[in-house]
């Protein structure tokens, strides 16, 4: 049977943004062809990959997803990402059908209205071109589609305002450690530790997927599909008529008259070239692979790359720079019951101080501690009962606190095409990155002092502080949204200014990061873009 080569809409990327757009278009009656650079795999295989990792490697989320040679993604210690600058943009993501939500934690914090108006309110960064109320209905759609659970208590809402629609499911229960943490934070510091909005089936099946059973392995893979990941949508999309081509590495976007996108060219594992055409195109490969593809596709009409008359494609690379502390406590907290991220303190991300430095949100990571502490315990030289007690004490009494910061868009934080080539001969991405003084000042004057107060309030007897920012793997900014085509890549519907039939929804469009994980905002943008695309396709 010959491969299909055309559809109403061609979508490059089968991550959460791609599958959400695809389903909206299919439901509206359009044909959809999806290209995925990497392989289609079963959940069973990934679960076994994880179980087969030695203990020392189980902390590397991408190690359960060995990349195919033709679809490289960053792996520990490799050089796929060519990094430069005072801070390393050492991100990871997964080029498999289903994308990086295979291993996300499911955390779904919405933006606040203030998060979207940094420039107007605090004189820094960029404003979004629409307000929170405009995005709200798309957030609701995202929550229904992904199956997001959260509290109905008005005192526990984020953003702190009444919701326009209830959560599909009630919150997941806290572990005893989280209960204790919540109490201590309230009593000692006046902070509210909120149940996190998370894409996880709470106490019931949802979306024909089972309920969370507390196996504490959300990262790197939910063994049962209780956490939403885009892979759960793929069979359903095909049942609705989508054609999904995996192991199809898009490498060139072809333009035609009127600078419309005409086709996408892809290479297969035999390095054979294929061409697919459509009336509309969506590139949703994440904020590293999307600008890479756009830049690779420079042609005579678009010498700076597709959609790049603004010269902003690949610029403004953003993330949520993280600082992680490890505390040793004198009483047991027992992390590891329930999902790996179940709560967070968000109020510290908001305030007038944002005129001077970044906000931060704090969470107690809820990973079971055996993986972190076993070798430490063995290193003490204890044996027998003393060893058992040492491991148990460390698992119970060590805690990971993470401060996740916002970052401002900086045009110098930039992705370009390096001279180094990958297995297919395509350029590896090069990224220059500096988290910037806005974020560094936060660490020095704001977030680390708060973190130390948290540690003290919890009765920490030992605190291991980080030496550098780590990455959250939340890729944002590289196809930035605005209302001026001279300074932005896409408009309020994530439509490329330069090409009327090209959409670039996702993290790359976000003009501000705030502190909370970006996925739900990306999905809201996907719904908004799909709506605009559907309207446009109907009119076309």
């Amino acid at each position, binding site marked *: 049977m010959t491969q299909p080569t055309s559809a109403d809409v061609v979508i490059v990327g089968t991550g959460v943004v791609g599958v959400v757009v695809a389903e909206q278009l299919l439901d509206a009656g359009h044909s959809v062809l999806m290209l995925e650079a990497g392989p289609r795999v079963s959940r069973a295989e990934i679960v076994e990959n994880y179980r087969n990792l030695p203990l020392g*490697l189980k902390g590397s989320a991408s190690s359960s997803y060995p990349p195919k040679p033709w679809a490289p993604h960053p792996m520990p210690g490799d050089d796929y990402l060519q990094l430069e600058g005072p801070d390393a943009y050492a991100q990871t993501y997964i080029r498999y059908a289903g994308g990086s939500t295979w291993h996300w934690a499911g955390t779904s914090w919405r933006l606040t209205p203030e998060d979207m108006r940094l420039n107007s309110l605090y004189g820094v960064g960029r404003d979004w071109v629409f307000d929170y109320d405009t995005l709200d209905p798309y957030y609701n759609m995202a929550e229904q589609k992904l199956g997001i659970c959260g509290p109905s208590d008005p005192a526990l809402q984020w953003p702190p305002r009444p919701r326009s629609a209830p959560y599909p499911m009630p919150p997941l229960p806290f572990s005893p450690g989280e209960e204790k943490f919540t109490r201590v934070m309230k009593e000692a510091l006046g902070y509210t530790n909120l149940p996190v909005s998370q894409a996880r089936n709470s106490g019931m099946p949802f979306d024909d997927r089972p309920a969370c059973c507390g196996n504490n392995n959300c990262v790197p893979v939910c063994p049962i599909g209780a956490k939403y990941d885009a892979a759960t949508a793929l069979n359903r999309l095909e049942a609705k008529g989508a054609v999904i081509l995996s192991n199809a590495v898009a490498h060139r976007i072809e333009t035609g008259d009127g600078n419309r996108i005409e086709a996408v060219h892809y290479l297969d594992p035999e390095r054979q070239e294929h061409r697919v055409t459509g009336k509309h195109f969506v590139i949703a490969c994440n904020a590293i692979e999307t600008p890479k593809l756009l830049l690779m596709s420079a042609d005579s009409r678009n010498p700076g790359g597709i959609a790049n008359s603004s010269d902003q494609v690949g610029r403004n690379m953003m993330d949520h720079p993280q600082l992680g502390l490890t505390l040793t406590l004198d009483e047991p907290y027992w992390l590891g019951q329930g999902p790996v991220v179940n709560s967070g303190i968000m109020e510290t991300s908001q305030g007038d101080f944002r005129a001077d430095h970044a906000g931060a949100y704090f969470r107690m990571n809820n990973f079971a501690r055996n993986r972190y502490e*076993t*070798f430490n315990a063995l290193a003490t030289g204890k044996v027998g009962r003393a060893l058992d007690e040492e491991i*148990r004490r460390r698992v119970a009494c060590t805690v990971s606190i993470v401060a996740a910061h916002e970052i401002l868009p900086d045009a110098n934080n930039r992705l370009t095409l390096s001279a180094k080539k990958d297995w297919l001969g395509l350029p590896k991405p090069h990224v220059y990155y500096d988290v910037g003084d806005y974020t560094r000042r936060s660490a020095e004057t704001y977030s680390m002092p708060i973190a130390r107060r948290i540690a003290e309030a919890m009765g920490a007897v030992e605190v*291991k502080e980080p030496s550098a920012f780590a990455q959250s793997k939340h890729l944002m900014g590289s196809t930035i949204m605005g209302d001026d085509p001279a300074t932005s890549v896409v408009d309020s519907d994530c439509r490329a200014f330069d090409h009327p039939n090209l959409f670039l929804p996702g993290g790359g469009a976000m003009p501000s990061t705030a502190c909370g994980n970006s996925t739900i905002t990306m999905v809201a943008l996907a719904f908004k873009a799909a709506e605009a695309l559907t309207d446009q396709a109907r009119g076309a």
Partner: protein
Amino acid sequence: MQHSSPSPGVSRRKLLLGGVSLLGYFTFAGPTLAWAREFQGTPLHQRFMELSGRLINHRLDEGTGLRIAAFAAQKYAGLAGRVERIIAIADERDAQEVEQFFDAIPEEDRELAYWIIAAWYSGASSGASDAEQFTFEHALTYQTTLDIVPIPTYAFSAPNGWARAPAPLLPVPRF
């Protein structure tokens, strides 16, 4: 309260923790059955299980023991003799528990003893990224906390059923 920044600390058990592999991929030693099958039921396997039981006073899974023993035979020259030496020390002391004889293990055999204990508790040959994986489910580290913390990837309870009273630090569950 101590604060410390991470330093290139010297690990007391260097051989246990090893260095971080440059590869970051997990490597497979090949179908276990092929190279471990030879060892099943051999005198060395049986004595290795005996030694393991003397060093670790818990129920030990035979399949895991087979894999650790087979790897140890490749890693340690003269494994059979060393196993006998350590067992002899335990017998000499008429030791019912590891605490009763471990101190008497001579320096040249200490490392093997520690390695065996680490292999059973961590389920791997070291903390390196390219360590050999012997077991995940039977790694003893999880047994010390199984009353309250799941082995990752394995359901802990009915949906939303994990909120329970915090367990006391002691005693360690029996296993």
